[in-house]
C-alpha cells in the first residue's frame, strides 16, 4: 500500500497500517507485490503494542510480512540467535529493563527497537549501556520513535488506549479527590496520544475547545507540544516528507476538543443501530465480539438471561462487507438484510449444485451434452466464485449469530421500549406511558436498563422533580433492584452543568407501518421480530455533532461562540476566541475528553453523509458502553 498513489484520501487507519508495515519491514517503506520472500523475523510486543496492531493487521497479514513468531515482551522467550527481532513497545521502565536483559542474554541476531511513543534520553542511554556491556552494540540495528500511541478502530474512529484506560477514564478526570500532580499526569497521557495521532495524520490542526473543562487543559497542552515541535527545526515531525499528500495538504483540519460533561445522556442511551447495539448488549472490544452461544432464552421476572454454552469470537473487520454496509443501520434493517443475503446465497448455492448435477449427467443426456460448453463456462465461474461464496457464507453465519444474540437481548429486556421512550424524553415529546410504570414493570429490562432510563429523564428534564416525586422514583428504582449511587453523582453534576441540562431535541421517533416487519416474518425468517417495534430513527444531531457543526461551518451560536482558539503554527500564542479563519473547514476531528461511544460516532457518520466532500473523524479518551459508564458514575456517586 503506497500512500501517495491512492486517488482516495488516506484514512487514519490506512496511515497507521502503513506505518506499522514500514516498521515490520525493518523501517523501510513497504512496497506491496514486491517479489521475493520476505525476511523472516520475530515480533516482540507489549500489551499496548498488541492492542494497536490487532485491529489493523491479522495474523495472516503479519505472516505475509515475514513474522513467523510474535511474542509478548514479558514472557519466557527462548533464544533464536539467527533471526532478527522487531520490538514494538512502550518506553516504560519495566520494558526497558527487559529489553536490556534480552540484549545481555543474546536472544536474537539483530534488534530493531521501536517505541510506541517517544523514549526519553536517559532511558535511551540505559539501553545503550546494556548493549555496550553485552557487546551487542552492532546488533542493535535501528531505534525508532514510532509515534503510534493510539488505537484506530475504523477508517474514521480512534481511541487513546486500552491498557491504562483507568488512568484517563471519566472517573479519573472527574473524581473530587484528585491532586494537581495526578491531573497533570492524566492530561499528559492524553496529550501524548493526541500528539502521536497528529504526527501520524501528518497535519497540524486548528484547535477549538470549551472553557473551564478538562478539554481546555488538553487543548492548552497539545497546542504547546505541537508548537514546540514545530519550532524545533531539526527534529520537527511535520516537515514535507511526513506531511500527508492529498487531503490535508492545502487545508488545515479542525480539532474540536469536547468534554464528556457536555452530554451525559448519550452514553446512557439505549440504541437501535447495529454496531452500537452490539457494543451495548454484547461483549464487544477492539472490533472483536465474544458470544456465548445459547440454546435458548429463559424468561425470568428480572429479564431473561441466555443459557450459557460455548464461546465464540468474531472479528468485525473492514473486509466484512456486510458489516461495513450495515453497522450503522437500524436493527430491523439488519435482520432483513441478513435474511436477504441468506436467500441470495442459497440461490447461488443451488445454481452451483445444479451445474454440478448437470455435469454428472455428461454423456448420458443429449440435452446435457449440448449444454455442456455453456455450462463449462458457467461451472468455471461458479467454481472460481466458490471462495467468494464460502466467505459470504462465513459472514452470513457470523452475522446471523451476532444479530440473533442481539435480538435475544432486545426481546428479553424490551429494549425497543426503552429506546423509544428515551427518544421521546430527549426530544421533549409527550410521554404516553408514565416513567414509573416502566420502572415498576418486572418484565421490562434489567435494573441497569431502568436506571439508565431514569438518569436520562433526570438529566434531560427542565424542571427537577419535586422532593415527593423523587422519593417515589427512588423507591421504585430500589424495589426494582437498582443501585442509586449514579443518581447521587448526576444530581451533583446537574447542579453545575446547566448548559448540558438543555439538550438538543431529537425529533420524533415514529413507528413505521407493518410493511417491513411483516415481510421479514412472512418469509420464515429466523429473526422473529414479533412484538418488537419497528422503529425508525429520525436524523437529529446529538450535542457533540451540533457543536462540531457550529465550529466547522463557522456558525454563530451562544453555545460555542466563546470556545477558545489555538493555532500552533502561529508565531505568537493567541488567546482570543476570534478565529482567524473565516471559511468552513473541510476536515475535522472531534475528540471527546472523558470517553465516548458508538452512538455518538454513528451520529457523526450520519451527519457527514449529508455533507458532500467533508471528512470527519471521531476519537475519545476511552470507549465505554452504558454499563461501564454507569459503573464509573456509581463510583463517583459513592459517599
Amino acid at each position, binding site marked *: 500500500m503506497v500512500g501517495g498513489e491512492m486517488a482516495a484520501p488516506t484514512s487514519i487507519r490506512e496511515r497507521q497500517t502503513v506505518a506499522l508495515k514500514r516498521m515490520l519491514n525493518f523501517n523501510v517503506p513497504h512496497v506491496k507485490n514486491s517479489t521475493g520472500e520476505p525476511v523472516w523475523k520475530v515480533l516482540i510486543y507489549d500489551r499496548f503494542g498488541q492492542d494497536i496492531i490487532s485491529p489493523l493487521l491479522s495474523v495472516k497479514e503479519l505472516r505475509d510480512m515475514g513474522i513467523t513468531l510474535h511474542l509478548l515482551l514479558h514472557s519466557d522467550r527462548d533464544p533464536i540467535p539467527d533471526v532478527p527481532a522487531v520490538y514494538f513497545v512502550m518506553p516504560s521502565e519495566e520494558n526497558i529493563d527487559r529489553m536490556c536483559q534480552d540484549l545481555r542474554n543474546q536472544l536474537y541476531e539483530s534488534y530493531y527497537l521501536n517505541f510506541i511513543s517517544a523514549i526519553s534520553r536517559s532511558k535511551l542511554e540505559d539501553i545503550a549501556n546494556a548493549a555496550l556491556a553485552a557487546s551487542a552494540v552492532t546488533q542493535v540495528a535501528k531505534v525508532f520513535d514510532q509515534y503510534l500511541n493510539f488505537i484506530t478502530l475504523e477508517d474514521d474512529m480512534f481511541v487513546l488506549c486500552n491498557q491504562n484506560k483507568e488512568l484517563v477514564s471519566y472517573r479519573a478526570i472527574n473524581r473530587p479527590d484528585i491532586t494537581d500532580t495526578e*491531573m497533570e499526569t492524566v492530561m499528559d497521557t492524553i496529550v501524548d496520544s493526541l500528539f502521536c495521532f497528529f504526527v501520524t495524520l501528518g497535519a497540524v490542526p486548528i484547535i477549538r475547545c470549551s472553557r473551564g473543562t478538562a478539554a481546555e487543559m488538553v487543548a492548552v497542552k497539545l497546542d504547546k507540544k505541537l508548537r514546540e515541535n514545530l519550532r524545533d527545526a531539526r527534529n520537527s515531525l511535520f516537515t514535507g516528507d511526513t506531511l500527508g499528500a492529498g487531503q490535508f495538504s492545502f487545508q488545515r483540519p479542525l480539532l474540536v476538543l469536547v468534554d464528556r460533561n457536555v452530554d451525559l445522556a448519550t452514553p446512557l442511551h439505549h440504541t437501535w443501530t447495529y454496531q452500537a447495539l452490539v457494543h451495548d448488549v454484547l461483549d464487544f472490544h477492539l472490533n472483536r465480539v465474544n458470544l456465548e452461544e445459547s440454546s435458548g432464552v429463559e424468561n425470568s421476572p428480572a429479564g431473561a438471561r441466555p443459557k450459557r454454552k460455548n464461546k465464540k469470537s468474531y472479528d468485525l473487520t473492514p473486509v466484512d462487507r456486510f458489516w461495513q454496509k450495515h453497522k450503522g443501520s437500524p436493527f430491523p434493517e439488519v435482520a432483513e438484510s441478513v435474511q436477504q443475503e441468506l436467500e441470495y446465497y442459497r440461490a447461488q448455492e443451488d445454481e452451483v449444485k445444479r451445474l454440478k448435477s448437470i455435469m454428472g449427467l455428461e454423456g448420458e443426456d443429449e440435452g446435457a451434452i449440448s449444454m455442456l460448453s455453456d455450462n463449462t463456462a458457467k461451472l468455471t465461474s461458479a467454481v472460481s466464485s466458490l471462495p467468494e461464496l464460502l466467505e459470504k457464507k462465513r459472514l452470513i453465519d457470523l452475522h446471523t449469530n451476532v444479530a440473533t444474540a442481539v435480538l435475544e437481548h432486545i426481546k428479553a429486556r424490551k429494549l425497543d421500549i426503552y429506546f423509544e421512550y428515551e427518544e421521546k424524553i430527549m426530544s421533549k415529546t409527550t410521554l404516553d406511558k408514565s416513567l414509573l410504570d416502566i420502572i415498576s414493570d418486572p418484565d421490562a429490562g434489567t435494573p441497569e436498563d431502568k436506571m439508565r432510563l431514569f438518569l436520562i429523564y433526570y438529566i434531560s428534564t427542565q424542571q427537577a422533580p419535586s422532593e415527593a416525586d423523587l422519593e417515589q422514583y427512588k423507591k421504585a428504582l430500589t424495589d426494582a433492584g437498582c443501585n442509586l449511587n449514579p443518581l447521587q453523582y448526576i444530581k451533583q453534576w446537574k*447542579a453545575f452543568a446547566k448548559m448540558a441540562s438543555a*439538550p438538543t431535541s431529537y425529533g420524533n421517533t415514529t413507528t413505521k407501518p407493518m410493511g417491513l416487519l411483516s415481510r421479514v416474518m412472512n418469509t420464515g425468517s429466523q429473526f422473529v421480530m414479533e412484538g418488537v417495534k419497528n422503529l425508525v430513527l429520525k436524523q437529529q444531531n446529538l450535542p457533540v455533532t451540533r457543536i462540531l457543526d457550529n465550529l466547522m461551518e463557522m456558525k454563530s451560536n*451562544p453555545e460555542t461562540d466563546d470556545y477558545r482558539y489555538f493555532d500552533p503554527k502561529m508565531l505568537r500564542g493567541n488567546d482570543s476566541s476570534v478565529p482567524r479563519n473565516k471559511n468552513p473547514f473541510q476536515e475535522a476531528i472531534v475528540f471527546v475528553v472523558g470517553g465516548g461511544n458508538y452512538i455518538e460516532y454513528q451520529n457523526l457518520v450520519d451527519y457527514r453523509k449529508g455533507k458532500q466532500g467533508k471528512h470527519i473523524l471521531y476519537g475519545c479518551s476511552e470507549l465505554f458502553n452504558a454499563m461501564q459508564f454507569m459503573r464509573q458514575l456509581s463510583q463517583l456517586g459513592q459517599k
Partner: protein
Amino acid sequence: MKLYSLSVLYKSEPKVVLLKAASDVSSFSFFQRSSVQEFMTFTSQLIVERSAKGSRASVKEQEYLCHVYVRSDGLAGVVIADSEYPARVAFSLLEKVLDEFSKQVDRIDWPVGSPATIQYTALEGHLSRYQNPREADPMSKVQAELDETKIILHNTMESLLERGEKLDDLVSKSEVLGTQSKAFYKTARKQNSCCAVM
C-alpha cells in the same frame, strides 16, 4: 453532612464588602473548584445585600442551604452548608465567629477591608472543625436565647430578589465571577432553560 463555605462580610448600604472567606471544595471535581468558590462568594454577597440588618435567614438553593446572620452593626456572616447540616449549629457558629472577629479586627477596617488586608486567620480552622457538628458544638453550648421562629426561611434565591430583577443579570454584572464562571452559568438561550441556579 457538610459545610462548604464560611465568610465574614460587612453591610454598608448599599454595598457589601467581603472581609474574609474560607471554603472547602474538596468534594467537587477538579475543573469545578474555582467556579464553585466564586459562586459561593457571589451568593454570600448577594444574600447579605438582600437581608436586613439585625436578621437571620436560611436560603435554600437546590441541595444547599445558605445561613446568614446580619448583625445590627452591619457585620455579617454566611455559612453555606448541605441540607443535612443542622441549622442551629450553623447559626451558633456564625454568632461565635462574628463575635470573635469583632474583637480581633478594628471596626474602622470593616467598611474598607478585603480578604488581603484583614488580619483574621481563624476562619479555616472553624470551618474544618465544624464539619463535625457534634464535636464542635455539643447541644449544651448552644445559646438558649436563639429563637428559631425569628429565622426567615427562603425556598429559593429568587425570593430574595426584587421585582423584575433577574439572577442572570446579576451574574453577568458581577465583578466577583470570572468569565469562566459566567460562561459556566450561562443558560443555552436556544432552549430557554429555566433551571434554578446556585
